[in-house]
């Protein structure tokens, strides 16, 4: 547990002055995501910049250095019967909070409990001019200035080095139950959307190999009533099932094939793609494993109202994130330049042009 802010600032300043580029790294467990960083670069490590700075359970707010491991955060929260409601994947004990926000990682509860960016209240960021800036804060509502904090979600570190992050945390639900319904993908998609439209305490809906898993969480009486109304068999070891899925250790992810992630309109019917698949987020996130054509996947995602990424494997030197319209691409380049004028941080990690 150490505050290495001044060393981090120095490293950024030195790199910017010398015209070198930096690869920002936490625990390195998400190195497989995004593109391979181009050219020679030096690693800027946040692994030792860790520790919980403040945690006030009654305020539902936690602030931690970006290099703090998710394992540490979850343990501290569990002592107070609270949780990170966005259910970030914990690939290993090395996985950090900073990396989770930079890559915008959220688990099965995301449609109901919100994503990592939804829980961000503020960040401290070292920009490309080696200035240590603070955006947002440690309160639930704050609309002063542009929302640079939540903007970091999915930026793959291209806008700066996050040094500290403040999050909203939530109490753990009093009770959870998971219902299993045997059905086809088409039936599951229908059921997922239907259930999400009912005022019941649903917090996850996933389909894999002929089974729909619906998680209920909340007041015990409400969970029982919803379970009775919807039916299905109870899943034993439900906590293990959901944490395995959140951590991407579910058997779907145990493959040498490239893994594709489609984030689309939840009502999109079953996609015409061969390969292993897993439907999550009540239909709004579709995972596929297999060799697919990039252009074809992009076109399917567009037709489904959403976007695709080549999440793991395949050619990491080509584009792996959904293409952006030309004016949006130009806008993102100007935004990147406004934070990182000499292009120090993670060049090409998100897109070849960024």
């Amino acid at each position: 547990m150490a505050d290495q802010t001044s060393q981090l600032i120095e490293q950024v300043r030195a790199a910017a002055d010398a015209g070198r580029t930096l690869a920002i790294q936490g625990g390195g467990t998400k190195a497989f995501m995004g593109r391979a960083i181009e050219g020679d670069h030096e690693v800027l490590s946040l692994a030792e910049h860790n520790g919980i700075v403040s945690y006030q359970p009654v305020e539902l707010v936690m602030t931690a250095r970006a290099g703090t491991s998710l394992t540490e955060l979850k343990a501290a929260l569990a002592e107070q019967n609270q949780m990170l409601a966005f259910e970030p994947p914990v690939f290993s004990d090395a996985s950090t909070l900073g990396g989770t926000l930079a890559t915008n990682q959220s688990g099965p509860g995301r449609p109901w409990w919100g994503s990592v960016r939804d829980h961000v209240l503020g960040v401290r960021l070292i920009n490309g001019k080696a200035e240590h800036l603070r955006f947002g804060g440690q309160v639930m509502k704050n609309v002063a200035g542009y929302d640079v904090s939540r903007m970091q979600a999915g930026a793959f570190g291209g806008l700066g080095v996050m040094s500290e992050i403040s999050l909203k945390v939530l109490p753990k639900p009093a009770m959870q139950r998971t219902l299993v319904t045997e059905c086809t993908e088409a039936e599951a998609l229908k059921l997922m959307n239907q259930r999400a439209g009912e005022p019941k305490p649903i917090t996850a809906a996933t389909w894999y190999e002929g089974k729909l898993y619906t998680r209920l969480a909340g007041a015990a009486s409400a969970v029982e009533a919803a379970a009775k109304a919807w039916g299905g068999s109870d899943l034993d070891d439900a906590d293990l099932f959901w944490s395995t899925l959140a951590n991407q250790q579910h058997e779907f992810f145990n493959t040498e094939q490239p893994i594709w992630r489609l984030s689309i309109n939840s009502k999109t019917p079953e996609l015409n793609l061969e390969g292993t698949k897993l439907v999550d987020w009540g239909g709004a996130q579709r995972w596929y494993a297999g060799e697919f054509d990039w252009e074809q996947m992009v076109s399917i995602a567009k037709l489904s109202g959403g976007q695709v990424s080549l999440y793991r494997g395949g050619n990491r030197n080509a584009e792996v994130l959904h293409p952006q319209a030309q004016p949006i691409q130009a806008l993102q380049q100007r935004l990147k330049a406004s934070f990182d004028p000499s292009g120090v941080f993670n060049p090409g990690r998100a897109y070849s042009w960024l």
Partner: protein
Amino acid sequence: MQTSTARTAEQFAQRQSLAQRFAEFIDPHYVIADEETLKPYECDGLSAYCEEALIVVLPETVEQAQRVLQICHAEGVPVVARGAGTGLCAGAMPHSEGVVLSMAKFNKILEIDTVSRAARVQPGVRNLAISESAAPMGLYYGPDPSSQIACSIGGNVAENSGGVHCLKYGLTVHNLLSVQFLTMEGELLTIGSEGLDSCGMDLMALFTGSEGLLGVVTEVRVKLLPRPERAQVVVAGFDNVTKAGDAVGEIIAQGIIPGGLEMMDGFAIQAAEDFAKAGYPLDAQALLLCEVDGTNEEVDEHIAAVEALFHKLGATSVRTSQSEEERARLWAGRKSAFPAVGRISPDYYCMDGTIPRGQLSHVLLEMQKMSDHYGLRVANVFHAGDGNLHPLILFDANVPGELERTEEFGGKILELCVEVGGCITGEHGVGYEKLRQMPAQFNDAEIVQFHELKRAFDQKELLNPGKGIPTLRSCQEYRSLDMNITPNATVESQQDTKGATHG
């Protein structure tokens, strides 16, 4: 307090020439260039700040709005986008040499997607109209600012509006899927998607709450939620605010996230009760309204827990709504707190700081001291669940110097909020009104970064100029004048001052 400066002959000529050009493609009735018709547009919901626009236009199509922007961009004319004009920070106050682009005619709900629970709407659609249209399908739109019968969704996006249900259902930023907007150059862009996230940096988050400085909203896709089976409200009186504040923390510590959790102080209770006859306990020094929503079973369980907790923590009265009518009546007092306070004072000024809840007693005590110092009464209405404080300072603008004292008092309250770890605005925005307090929350390097970010969208800085982010020079002036606190981060690098000439 803003008075229009006399216009030069050159400005009148420019008004004529622009009006003629706009009238070539917009119905001339909706190109407003005469002083009398311009009058209603000179302020938003914060009428203390007024300015006459050069011209107001009300386009009816995206193409018309696009051409207005293209012309203004080419001519270097500032543009202020306007929704329903209900904002509370003078964010939609016109620029004296600029065009007000009213989006009021974009009032159509384009699509309600009942299966994936979303609505695609034009920016001028009223917040409440979305929920009303979705109601037959059992759905509604979450954020419910107090102005929801009038405020438009485009304005909600610009301000990242909140409301009384934020703690559980989030702000505008948590309830949007995509936004289509026009840049100052007139380029039509779409960000977000029909899915829950998009690749790359989160432009949706950046755009939401950008106060009309980055683009003009032309279409929004919002999430819809299933309407809870039931909602019930528990109203509890306490003999001091500290006890009420502790009760808020205790509810959350029990793992209950109420749909709404509001607090009013003695002064506000009195005013609201006189006005709305909600049945509030007049002997209480603090009142909590705790609304629990969800399934029937959940509400039963949580209401019992909340009632027990309030009794345990020494509430002087506890009352739970037994019908929808009673619930509405209990809320009516809270929802009419502003006009109720308005009735007992010629004018009032509403502040919007957010604080960590644990600081509530300290902040209220300090505010009482300031109230004595300035000789101005203050009533407090508080989104207690998320720490968003709305002190209402009572004053009389006709008494010379009172408005200025009120402004100073308000500024001190916001600085106090920052001092205890909070912020200067929780949901109303900075606009023109809170520019002066921005340097209390942000240092020079952060202000410069904001300006550079703005220029990535609007190189010529023509969209809503002079709002949201102060110039670096004015920050330095404010600090040297009367700032007694340091902004939340120390200035690590003072060498970069190139932002000083911009903004």
